[in-house]
């Protein structure tokens, strides 16, 4: 895998239904599952992700998106609008996808922002398996998308510029300040108003479990995949649990792979 391009699905989604898994594998596009909810998004270096961490009472995705829209509109006159579904759009096309997670100690809202993404790669890999007939997983809501950069007339927009500009705007609006540069990053330091610039996460917050098959595919809610002529397999936690035809019995208990099953028919 490239480690750069990824398709990133929601906590309870079905990656086979959302993504062309075979194509992703061929193109070295990682498939990942978030801890937050929502739909599937495509990440490449032309996309910028923002995460807003707050205590629970302060959790407000609408406020974060309004902040982003105002900042970007004032800078590059983009005509961005937000809506109740926590989308940010230019006309009918979305430029962000949002998701949130709330736990006992706090919450976060994060969103993507398409700046200079490869939209052709995006649309091609986000074509899921149309033969999944029954699924209780949460489904993405398909939507036309667009890059910010193609709507800016006077200002050159790159992910780097967007990051700098949004960061400066955030610091100014919320009156935050930098500590001395020689302070190392420490998870215990939680002084309100201080900002740390982090180049890499400490190992203690890395999530190796989230790179496993068990997390990415094994957390998939139950579904049924049809192979035509009444042939079906039922999959639970990414593993085939039932088949409609005795000729397919040998795949019971194995990780679901539609190519393998197709070849058996």
């Amino acid at each position, binding site marked *: 895998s490239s480690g750069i391009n990824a398709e990133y699905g929601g*906590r309870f989604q079905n990656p086979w239904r959302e993504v062309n898994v075979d194509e992703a594998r061929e193109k070295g596009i990682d498939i990942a599952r978030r801890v*937050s909810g929502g739909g599937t998004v495509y990440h490449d270096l032309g996309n910028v992700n923002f995460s807003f961490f707050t205590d629970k009472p302060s*959790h407000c995705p609408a406020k974060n998106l309004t902040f982003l829209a105002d900042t970007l509109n004032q800078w590059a006159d983009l005509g961005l609008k937000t809506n109740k579904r926590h989308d940010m759009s230019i006309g009918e096309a979305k430029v962000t996808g949002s*998701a949130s997670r709330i736990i006992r100690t706090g*919450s976060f809202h994060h969103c993507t922002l398409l700046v200079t993404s490869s939209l052709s790669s995006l649309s091609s890999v986000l074509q899921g398996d149309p033969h999944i007939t029954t699924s209780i997983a949460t489904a993405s809501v398909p939507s036309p998308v667009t890059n910010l950069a193609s709507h800016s007339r006077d200002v050159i927009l790159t992910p780097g510029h967007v990051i700098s500009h949004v960061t400066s705007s955030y610091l100014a609006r919320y009156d935050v300040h930098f500590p001395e540069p020689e302070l190392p990053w420490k998870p215990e330091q939680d002084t309100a108003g201080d900002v740390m610039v982090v180049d890499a996460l400490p190992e203690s917050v890395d999530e190796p479990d989230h790179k496993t098959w068990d997390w990415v595919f094994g957390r998939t809610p*139950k579904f049924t995949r049809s192979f035509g002529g009444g042939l079906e397999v039922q999959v639970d936690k990414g593993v085939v649990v039932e088949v409609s035809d005795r000729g397919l019995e040998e795949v019971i208990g194995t990780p679901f792979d539609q190519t393998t099953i197709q070849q058996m028919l």
Partner: protein
Amino acid sequence: IRQFNTAFSATRPLSMYYTKSHEWVNVSGGLGRVGITDHAQAALGDIVYVDLPDLDAEFDVGEEVSSVESVKAVGDVALPVSGIVKAVNDALSDTPTLVNQSAEDGGWICEIELTDTSELDDLMDKAAYDAFLESE
């Protein structure tokens, strides 16, 4: 279709205990039925998915026993008291909105066998929980 444990009666409000993180456990003998409160479902909004625990899984008090996704966010359900999962509400697979419609009754999430009933002393009864909500 699972037969739900008939020792349960949701019409015994005196056996309802509540946590500050808006979960409830309805206790009958050594068994408890668990869910999120009406306050919690209202805050979450329309629920689109409930992640049910495995049968016979054992959890400590405060551990995440379930996860709930609403249109707004994914939130955790912490077990109010330690226990072993004996039943799950399969109806929530097809109809997750049952939690919105009836959070403290038909929208229950799982049933557990309590492993330490003394933990109930740390929970609130309905009057205390209502007072807690007022103060938040």
